[in-house]
């Protein structure tokens, strides 16, 4: 039988696949740079955990409840913020992520700074595999439809898309909502696996980690996002042997991978992914100066 440790890494990788592919819909296909994905994950995690703990929901209902709550917040937050572009949208989503984290840190029902304990363990490997397949299936259906083509058109050139009769605001919000829905779904699985949640794990760094998975795997490529999710879950664990050099090596590997394949492991060619990559570059320069202050 497979050891619990490996099982745990596989389950985490599965949850990260859901997170990365749903973020890929927003960032990779629609071209909207969101760095608040972990906030939707935490909304789903808390909503589903509270649903099982206090409302007595069965697991599947709790998962869907968490996903719907996250999706609703995605739409609510998307309507005003998606009017912003590039780094402005990134900063707005970053702010949203921090607000959610701080609210959960101070609410009674979420356990505040102590965290929420005693969530029943429901997530199994089978659940995670089924959930990941479900996510991929839905995202694939969306992307291969009229909606998917509209999203890609928005990514390529918003003005051109608008002039072709695409309601860009509607499709951007839709993509944001669907992405948030699946992030909440992943959050629910996460909460019911660890049986404990605390707001600090859904902070800014977690959102960046999800973004790294997407960029590393290849923007606008579902297989790439999956590969990125698996790689970035497994590498830090494989490096455990390296003790204090572990995170140093992890960083070095990220830098080398991006240097060797700037379009991501399975990324599309430079032309299609170019615009969003440019936005990320501009933003990361901004984040650097932000960090220094």
């Amino acid at each position, binding site marked *: 039988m497979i050891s*619990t440790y*490996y099982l*745990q890494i596989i389950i985490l990788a599965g949850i990260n696949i859901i997170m990365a592919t749903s973020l890929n819909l927003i960032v990779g296909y629609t071209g909207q740079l969101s760095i608040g994905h972990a906030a939707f994950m935490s909304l789903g995690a808390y909503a589903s955990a509270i649903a099982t703990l206090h409302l007595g929901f069965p697991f599947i209902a709790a998962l869907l409840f968490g996903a719907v709550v996250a999706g609703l917040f995605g739409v609510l937050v998307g309507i005003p913020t998606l009017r912003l572009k590039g780094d402005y949208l990134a900063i707005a989503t970053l702010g949203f992520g921090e607000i959610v984290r701080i609210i959960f840190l101070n609410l009674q029902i979420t356990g505040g700074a102590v965290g929420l304990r005693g969530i029943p363990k429901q997530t199994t490997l089978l659940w995670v595999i089924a959930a990941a397949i479900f996510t991929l299936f839905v995202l694939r259906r969306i992307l291969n439809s009229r909606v998917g083509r509209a999203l890609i058109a928005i990514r390529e050139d918003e003005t051109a898309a608008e002039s072709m009769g695409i309601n860009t605001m509607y499709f951007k919000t839709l993509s944001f909502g669907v992405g948030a829905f699946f992030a909440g779904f992943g959050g629910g699985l996460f909460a019911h696996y660890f049986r*404990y949640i605390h707001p600090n794990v859904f902070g800014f760094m977690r959102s960046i980690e999800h973004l790294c998975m997407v960029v590393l795997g290849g923007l606008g490529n579902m297989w790439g996002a999956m590969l990125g999710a698996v790689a970035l879950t497994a590498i830090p664990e494989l490096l455990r042997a390296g*003790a204090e*050099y572990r995170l140093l*090596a992890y960083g070095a*590997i990220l830098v*080398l991978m991006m240097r*060797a394949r700037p379009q991501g492991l399975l990324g599309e060619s430079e032309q299609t992914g170019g615009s969003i990559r440019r936005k990320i570059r501009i933003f990361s320069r901004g984040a650097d100066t932000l960090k220094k202050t």
Partner: protein
Amino acid sequence: MKKYRLTMFIVLVLCMALLLTSGCSTQQAAPGTQEPEEGTVEETVDVKVGTVGPLTGGAATYGLSVSNAVQIALEEANENNEIPGVNLVQISEDSEGDWSKAANAFSKLIDQDNVNVIIGAVLSSETAAGGPIVMDGEVPTISPTSTATGLTEGNPYLFRNCLSDEVQASQLAEYAVTELGLKRFAILYTNNDYGVALKDAFEATAKEKAEVVAVEAFMDGDEHFRPQLTSIQQKEPDAVFVAGYYTEAAKIAQQAAEQAMSIQILGADGFYSPVLVEIGQDAIEGATFTAGFFSADPNPVVQSFVARYTELFGEEPDMFAAQAYDAARIVIEAMKQNGTDRQAIRDGLAETKDFPGITGLTSIDEEGDTLKEVLILKVVDGAFQRLR
């Protein structure tokens, strides 16, 4: 470009090679393994002790203190052959201060390394995430620093050895009434989680046994306390409990002296710093406070720990290190009494009673929580002296 890729590839390979070779560094086979004595062919068995805590990131200083202190305790046990035929090996895992990573570390220690006992985790959220994992794996775990209320409840495998704000404040109140004979208390607290927790616990205990005549708040970093002190002075208390840190405490003492208030000053572990006396000078003389650890304690166990820690790591051990050292000593004691397999250690930990640790006399209650007689220190001639 092609040449570039080749160089990159070589660098990557070298990085991986470096990682593989440095892999041994986590498993510190503590030196001083006893050679089997002549005549007796006794084989030493390795018993693995895991530690989990942040070794990188913002909270790394706590995690390192814990890991270092455990290392010293295990080395000492091996050198003195305290558990015959057993060599204790430490496996230290990083949590990055992130509880989901701590959960991975717990699982790895239990499944991959097959440890018999875990000392950790450090942050309360990390220990809370590890709780269900160690319960499923049936591995005894003792956290030296996680103070969140109710953490160990309902988990027979989770214990802790630490000092909560509530416990020290209520013990101080009790000590002040019974030993110091004080009757009328005023409380001056800093308005943050630390100050409020201390104030609430002190007030509750003091009200049962004596009187609380005034409660005043101040903000972090305040410089002037005269308004609060004047209002306290009118109520004529015997003592004022300052629930805050040493800088403010020293200034409060000085401003009270300037107002010709002769009053006993009480405090908690936030007082424990040389700066208290540096700023407070004569005014702070006689102040009495609780502490988690007293590094100048003449007790030889404390002195040898402080000396060894300073020699190995180049700095004085802090309270976290001292509590981790005690936690490791409690684990070793449990192994000596009961044996080294997981269940035996668990039972041994649960039975811990009046263990003479460097952080005070320690027992573990039926919920796995600590009952500790906290240290009480007093400022005498500009230096700290242990009262209890």
